[in-house]
């Protein structure tokens, strides 16, 4: 199918572009590793050594989120700046199909942060990497990555009209780490956060990955929810893109940097 091929080629194309940039190094390796170190020491200081793997997975997932968040908003901004955004909009395929590979590539390259934090934890902090359900883990990670890529698609499709999307990106990093229980359980937060977290792919992603690794909960339910939220994101993104693309053509904001 042509669409599948376009998505595959586009994702590889954008991923390759991302991986040669120093932002990749910063966002997907250095930031997660440094935050993992902070988390490790905090847990050590508090006397909870058994949860270092928990911290490694959480900070890895945080890295996938950061990469997706900044990469997706950044993808549009980058194309705008390069002067290629117009060309992408002017091309025949529906813009959704053109945009999806760009955001998917950000979460795929983001997956490196999970490996980075696990590797770092193993080598410098001696965290034993025993996964309770290896197979489920191998499914959970791609499921999480894919659903995050789709969430990136939704974000990018709402950013297309708004030139200063980067400011919003700033605002969404920590809140999502908090609201999806990446490094501390949602039970610590006020009750209303729980239902909000149901809408966010990273919550299901970290649940799936953590339960698969630590064996402390159901795995297939969160994996399923990754798929469900992913589907919802695509539907919403398609609607947004229709509106926003038309508005951008009416207001001539595509070419402006």
């Amino acid at each position, binding site marked *: 199918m042509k669409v599948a091929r376009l998505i595959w080629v586009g994702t590889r194309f954008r991923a390759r572009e991302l991986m040669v940039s120093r932002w990749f190094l910063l966002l997907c390796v250095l930031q997660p590793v440094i935050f993992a170190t902070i988390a490790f020491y905090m847990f050590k200081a508090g006397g909870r050594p058994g949860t270092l793997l928990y911290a490694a997975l959480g900070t890895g997932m945080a890295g996938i989120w950061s990469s997706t968040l900044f990469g997706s908003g950044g993808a549009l901004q980058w194309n705008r700046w*390069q002067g*290629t955004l117009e060309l992408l909009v002017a091309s025949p395929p529906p813009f959704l199909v053109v945009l999806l590979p760009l955001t998917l590539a950000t979460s795929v390259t983001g997956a490196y942060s999970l490996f980075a934090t696990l590797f770092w934890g193993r080598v410098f902090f001696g965290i034993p990497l025993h996964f309770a359900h290896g197979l489920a883990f191998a499914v959970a990670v791609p499921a999480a990555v894919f659903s995050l890529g789709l969430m990136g698609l939704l974000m990018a499709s709402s950013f297309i009209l708004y030139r200063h999307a980067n400011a919003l990106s700033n605002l969404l990093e920590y809140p999502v780490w908090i609201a999806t229980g990446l490094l501390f359980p949602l039970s610590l937060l006020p009750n209303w956060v729980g239902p909000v977290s149901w809408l966010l792919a990273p919550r299901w992603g970290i649940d799936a990955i953590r339960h698969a690794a630590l064996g402390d909960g159901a795995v297939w339910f969160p994996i399923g929810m990754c798929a469900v939220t992913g589907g919802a994101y695509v539907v919403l993104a398609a609607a947004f893109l229709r509106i926003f693309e038309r508005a951008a053509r009416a207001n001539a904001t595509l070419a402006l940097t």
Partner: protein
Amino acid sequence: MIEAIELRRTYRTTTGILRRRPLEVEAVRGISFDVAEGELFGLLGPNGAGKTTTIKMLITLLLPTAGEARVLGYDVVRDAREVRKRIGYVFGGDRGLYERLSGLDNLKYFAELYGVSGKAQRVRIEEVLELVGLTGREGERVEGYSRGMRQRLHIARGILHDPQVVFLDEPTIGVDPVGARALRSMIAGLVEAGKTVLLTTHYMFEADSLCDRIAVIAGGRIVAEGTPSALKGRVADQTVVEVEVFGIEEHDVTRVRDLRGVTAVSVEERDQAQLLTIRSPRGLELTQDIRASLDGARIGRIVAREPTLEDAYVALVTEGAE
């Protein structure tokens, strides 16, 4: 092939820093023209005349505020997707390519976007590289390409999917004369191959040498349309007198303008002097009258000559902008 009917485009922006006032700029004010199959049509005009806005409406990137346009029979607003499949869009300048990737990678990506895939893609990419003269350089990163090479890569990208209609927006801008000449012959080659081409430019000689028909656009309107020779014919019956003056005043210019027989006067600043260009019907001997009117100023050379297409262009454009 291409039809524009009373196209209008208004931009709404804001001015002021503290209290933002809305401002409406009418960039295109009712443009109509037709381009037939296999024609190389030029939109010629100075910067800010509305050429780029017009072309963007035709390639579906901008919605007209009023009016209609059709490309290959498809409406640019309602059937945007159908239009996009069948046209190529090439613009000038440094942007529009993925700098950190190679020329080949850029072409591969756009080939995918335009549905040219698999074996056909490889063949086609080789063909277009050959056509634009970039064979052998496609493996290098675009960031190292010269302006001329980028332009050629742009053209390659624009024709990958073998579109019937190609839109070129100032394709030779900023390119050295030798490179520009090569680009122009490539553009002529596209037409020879049977494509329909719409070209925008502010280089008058480019429009003259390449285009089958030209529309001169100024101030958002078409001020003249026709073949290059027809446009030259508009000024064939005129004489141009060029007077070099030092220190001319506004009332002097007015006096010259008011002389019987003078059709237009324009003033150009040149270092310490000004150049007055006076147009009048052929046969009228106005040199003495002009000298008399410029009594107060110091006069340098006075030359009477045949009008060129440039004079026609300048006349059309300055009148059109008023």
